[in-house]
C-alpha cells in the first residue's frame, strides 16, 4: 500500500500542529463558533448529540495492521472502546473530548493517518472498490489513481471552500462495487479500442435529500489528463455552484440546472486551458511511481488448493461462512475474506477495540498485514490462501466477526441514527436490531438470496437508503419516529433509486412490513430471480397492496 515519504509526513505533522493551535485559540475565545466550525470540520470534528464526533480518513478503505491497531488504541484510550466504520470507508468515534482531539490526531499521524477533509465543504476521502487489486473482473487497479487524487485534493488551496461537500469514487472493475454513479464525480477505469488506459467520467450523482444518478460527461479521458479534468470540473463547480441555499449547493443541482450537456461543455471549455499544463498533466513516470506503491503481494506458490474441500464437506458452519463471506480471487489458491461487522449483537459497522486488534493480528498472519473497509461497512482481508481459511475462520468466529450473512438481508447498511447523530430524525440501529431478530434463520436468509437493505435515520442518507433494494428512511412525524420504505434501489451497474412503497410506518411496524415485503417477493419470484429482479418485473403495486392491506 501507499507509504508516506518525508514530504507526506511533514504535511500531516504540520496539520496536527495547526489544529492544536486552532483548538487552543477556540478554547481561549479567540475564534468564534462559526469560524472554528469550518476549521474543525475540515479535520473531521463534529459536535454531535452527546459529544464531539471524530471522523478519521481511511483513504480508499485501505489499512495496514499498524493503522488498525492505532484505531483500536484510540477507541480504547480516548473513546468508549469501539468505533463505527462508515459508508465512506472511514471510521467515526462518537465520544472523544474536544480537548483530546489534537492528541488523537498526533497519534494518527504516527501511522500516516489523519482526519483531513473528512467533513466540510471540500473534497472528501476518495473511495473505491474493496476488492481493488484482487478482483477477477478488474481492468486496472484503481488504488494508484485514488492516491494521486488524494494528494491532489489534500489541502487544495482553490477548492477548500466549495459550495458544498464533494465526493469522488473510482472503480477499475467491470462490476461497480464503489457506487460511482451516486457520487459527485465517479471515475470508471477502462481501456479504449486502442488499448489505452483512461476513465469514463460521471458527474452529478448523489444521495441525500435529492438522490440523483450521475451522468456521463466524457466517455473516455486518457489517464494523463485525470487531474487537469478534475481541476476543470471543480473550477466550474466552485464558480457556478449555488451558495445561497445549502440544500441546492451540491454539484448534482448545478448539473441538473445546466443540463449535463451544457455542464460538460463548460468543463471542456475550461479544460482546454489546462489540459497541456505540465503542472497538472500526469507523466508516465508519475503514474509508474504511484503504481509501484501497490505491488502484487508475494503469493505462496505452494497453496494446497484441495485442502479446503474436505473441510467444507465436514463442517456446515465453516461451509456457510466460506460460501457467504469469501470471494473468488484473481490469484489461484487465494480468496478475499469479508469480515462481517453485522453480528446481530452489534450495531452495523461497529467494531470494538479488541475486534480491531484481532483483525490486525489476523491480517498480519493471513493477509500480508493489510485490511480494507467496505462501503457496506464490513472489513476485508483481501489475500488469504485457501489452505489457511479454516484457521482464519475459527479466529474470526471466536471474536464474533464471522457471521455468515454477507450480501444477505442481515448485512444491512446503517447510519448511527438518532442515538448519536444530531441530524437524525429517527433511530436506525434499533430498527436494524428489530429486523435482525425477525429474520434470524440463516437458511431463510440464504433462500432470499442477494438482498441489500439500507437504513438512514434522516434524509441526508448516510445509510444510502435511496439505493437499497429495500430502503428504510427515518422521519419525524410530530415527535414520533416513522419510517418510509422504498423498493428497487441499487448502487451497482444497474443503478436506480428506490420507489416509495407508500405512507411511512411507525417504528413497531417496520419489521412486520419487512416481513410482508419479503413474503410478497417469495410468492412472486420466478425461478432463481433475485428480489431486485422480481421487483423490476412486477413493480411496486403488489408490494403496496399487501403492505397496507
Amino acid at each position: 500500500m501507499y507509504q508516506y515519504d518525508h514530504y507526506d509526513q511533514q504535511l500531516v505533522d504540520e496539520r496536527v500542529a495547526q489544529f492544536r493551535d486552532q483548538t487552543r485559540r477556540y478554547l481561549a475565545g479567540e475564534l468564534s463558533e462559526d469560524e472554528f466550525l469550518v476549521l474543525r470540520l475540515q479535520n473531521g470534528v463534529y459536535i454531535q448529540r452527546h459529544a464531539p464526533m471524530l471522523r478519521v480518513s481511511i483513504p480508499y478503505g485501505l489499512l495496514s495492521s499498524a493503522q488498525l491497531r492505532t484505531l483500536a488504541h484510540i477507541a480504547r484510550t480516548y473513546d468508549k472502546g469501539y468505533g463505527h466504520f462508515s459508508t465512506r470507508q472511514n471510521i467515526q468515534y462518537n465520544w472523544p473530548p474536544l480537548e483530546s482531539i489534537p492528541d488523537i490526531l498526533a497519534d494518527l499521524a504516527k501511522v500516516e493517518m489523519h482526519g483531513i477533509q473528512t467533513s466540510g465543504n471540500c473534497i472528501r476521502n476518495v473511495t473505491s472498490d474493496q476488492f481493488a487489486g484482487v478482483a477477477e473482473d478488474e481492468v486496472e487497479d484503481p488504488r494508484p489513481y485514488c492516491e494521486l487524487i488524494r494528494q491532489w485534493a489534500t489541502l487544495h488551496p482553490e477548492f477548500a471552500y466549495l459550495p458544498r461537500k464533494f465526493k469522488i469514487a473510482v472503480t477499475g472493475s467491470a462490476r461497480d462495487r464503489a457506487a460511482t454513479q451516486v457520487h459527485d464525480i465517479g471515475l470508471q477505469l477502462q481501456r479504449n479500442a486502442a488499448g489505452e488506459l483512461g476513465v469514463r467520467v460521471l458527474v452529478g450523482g448523489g444521495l441525500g435529500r435529492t438522490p440523483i444518478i450521475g451522468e456521463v460527461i466524457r466517455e473516455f479521458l486518457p489517464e494523463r489528463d485525470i487531474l487537469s479534468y478534475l481541476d476543470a470540473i471543480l473550477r466550474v463547480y466552485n464558480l457556478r455552484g449555488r451558495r445561497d441555499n445549502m440544500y441546492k449547493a451540491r454539484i448534482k443541482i448545478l448539473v441538473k440546472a445546466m443540463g449535463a450537456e451544457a455542464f460538460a461543455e463548460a468543463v471542456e471549455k475550461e479544460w482546454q486551458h489546462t489540459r497541456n499544463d505540465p503542472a497538472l498533466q500526469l507523466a508516465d513516470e508519475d503514474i509508474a511511481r504511484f503504481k509501484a506503491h501497490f505491488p502484487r503481494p508475494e503469493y505462496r506458490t505452494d497453496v494446497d488448493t484441495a485442502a479446503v474441500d474436505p473441510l467444507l464437506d465436514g463442517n456446515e458452519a465453516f461451509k456457510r461462512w466460506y460460501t457467504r463471506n469469501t470471494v473468488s480471487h484473481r490469484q489461484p489458491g487465494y480468496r478475499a475474506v469479508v469480515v462481517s461487522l453485522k453480528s446481530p449483537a452489534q450495531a452495523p459497522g461497529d467494531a470494538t477495540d479488541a475486534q480491531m486488534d484481532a483483525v490486525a493480528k489476523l491480517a498480519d498472519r493471513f493477509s500480508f498485514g493489510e485490511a480494507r473497509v467496505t462501503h457496506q461497512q464490513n472489513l476485508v482481508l483481501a489475500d488469504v490462501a485457501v489452505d489457511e481459511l479454516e484457521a482464519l475462520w475459527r479466529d474470526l468466529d471466536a471474536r464474533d466477526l464471522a457471521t455468515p450473512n454477507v450480501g444477505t438481508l442481515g448485512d444491512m447498511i446503517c447510519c448511527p441514527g438518532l442515538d448519536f447523530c444530531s441530524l437524525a430524525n429517527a433511530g436506525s440501529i434499533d430498527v436494524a436490531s428489530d429486523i435482525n431478530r425477525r429474520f434470524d434463520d440463516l437458511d431463510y436468509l440464504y433462500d432470499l438470496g442477494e438482498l441489500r437493505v439500507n437504513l438512514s435515520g434522516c434524509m441526508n442518507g448516510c445509510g444510502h437508503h435511496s439505493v437499497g433494494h429495500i430502503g428504510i428512511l427515518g422521519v419525524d412525524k410530530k415527535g414520533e419516529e416513522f419510517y418510509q420504505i422504498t423498493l428497487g434501489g441499487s448502487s451497482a451497474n444497474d443503478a436506480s433509486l428506490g420507489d416509495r412503497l407508500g405512507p411511512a410506518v411507525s417504528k413497531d411496524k417496520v419489521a412486520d412490513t419487512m416481513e410482508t415485503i419479503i413474503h410478497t417477493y417469495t410468492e412472486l419470484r420466478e425461478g432463481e430471480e433475485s428480489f431486485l429482479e422480481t421487483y423490476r418485473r412486477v413493480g411496486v403495486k403488489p408490494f403496496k397492496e399487501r403492505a397496507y392491506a
Partner: protein
Amino acid sequence: MPNLIRNRALVNDDPWLHLDDDDAVPTSGDVTVSWQRWQTEKGEIGALNGRLGVRLDGDFPIEELDTLLGLPLIVVHFPAFKDGRCYSHARLLRTRHDYDGEIRATGDVLRDQIAYMERCGINAFEIRKDRAAEEALKAFDEFSVDYQGRSNRAFPLQARRD
C-alpha cells in the same frame, strides 16, 4: 495598528483608497473602484493623477479577467470567508494570465484562510478590522510543504519532489 499585510509584511502606509460607487473621485491619490464603475468611468478616473485599481467579487466572469491585466491592483472581495469563489479568480490571474500586479483580499479575511489565499496568488490581505494582522502573519509559517504547489510551481508529484 495597520490591518494590511503585503508580501508577508505589515504595511503602515497604504496609499489605496477604496471608493464606493457614489463617492466623488479625489483629484490626487490612488483609488480602487468596483468593476461596474470601472466599466463606465474608467476613462475619466484613469485620467487623474493617481493610480487606479479595480475591485471584483465572486460573480466576476472569468472570461473578463484579461481586461484587467494592465492594472496595478486587483482587489478580490470575500463577503464571507466560506465563499471560496475568488480563490479561482486569483489563481487564474496568476497562472493563466501571468498577472504580476498586486492581488488584494478584502472582506471576511481571517488568519485561517490567508495561507490558502496566498497559495492561489493573493499577495495582500486586509485583515478584518476586529482581528490583529500581526497575529495573522503566523499563518504563513504553518505549512512548509503542499501537494499543489504555489501558483507558480508545478504539482509536486513524487517524481518531482525528491
